[in-house]
């Protein structure tokens, strides 16, 4: 099995840590994590588009769903002044993040945006009905893990995109990829 994967050689808490993602179990787990997290968002985004068309009315959640939470001043501002942004970005952002993760394209960009969206879902969780450790928090951590470990290089298209002339001329683009 050839995966053209990254090797992590780091220092954590004063100890040298070295391991590679070219081992079959690491590759298997990273790819599975990426695809499952990708489907979570792709499915959520597609459901919204099938339900309401190109834009999704988020104002109810922004105004009332987050009432009493620490993000309400932000969400309420968007609901009152720029609802078009979240109405477009929630469904299509979820679809783009989902596709990016499933196919491993611009994986870190997708995962970082997933963290931003999931952060709003987590912190806008009025009443903490499912506790402080809930699906959204795990989503943030899974997206963070995908970005941290560059999971797009494992069975993802980023492994090929990183070797293109464009990326070699602009190496900073690698920060957005797997």
């Amino acid at each position, binding site marked *: *099995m*050839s*995966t*053209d*994967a*990254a*090797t*992590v*050689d*780091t*220092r954590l808490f004063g100890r040298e840590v070295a391991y*590679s993602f*070219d*081992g*079959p179990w690491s*590759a298997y787990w990273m790819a599975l994590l990426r695809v499952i997290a990708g489907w979570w968002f792709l499915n959520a985004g597609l459901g919204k588009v099938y339900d309401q068309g190109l834009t999704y009315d988020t104002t109810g959640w922004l105004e009332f769903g987050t009432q009493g*939470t*620490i*993000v309400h001043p932000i969400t309420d501002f968007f609901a009152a002044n720029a609802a078009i942004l979240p109405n477009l970005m929630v469904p299509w952002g979820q679809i783009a993040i989902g596709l990016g993760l499933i196919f491993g394209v611009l994986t870190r960009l997708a995962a*970082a945006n997933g*963290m*931003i969206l999931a*952060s709003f879902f*987590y*912190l806008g969780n009025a*009443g*903490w009905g499912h*506790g*402080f*450790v809930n699906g959204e*928090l795990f989503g*943030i951590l899974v997206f*963070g893990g995908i970005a941290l470990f*560059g999971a797009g*290089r494992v069975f993802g298209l980023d492994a090929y995109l*990183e070797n293109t002339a464009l990326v070699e001329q602009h*190496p*900073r683009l*690698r*920060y957005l990829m797997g």
Partner: protein
Amino acid sequence: MNTDSLDTADLIGMLGGALIAVGVVVLGAVNTLTDNPHTEVTNDAGAVTAEPLVPADVRAYLVAAGLVIWGLYGIYKLTRPAETTEQPSAALADD
């Protein structure tokens, strides 16, 4: 990315995770071990009958601060010049 050593920015970035752990785990344990609820408890009339020792908003602000630090760290890394060691080591699984 070369991760053999951590600079000040990396350590500040890691502080984000510490704040999240304090908000979720440590203060959650404080509420649990002092036999307090994690959120306000109300009766059918809407009156508050029990409050957490550490309010949920305080914990949420700590988690939010940690997430913001992670976000700022990511933006900071994006704005830094690309490192020459950025190229991932390509190794074949069956090497």
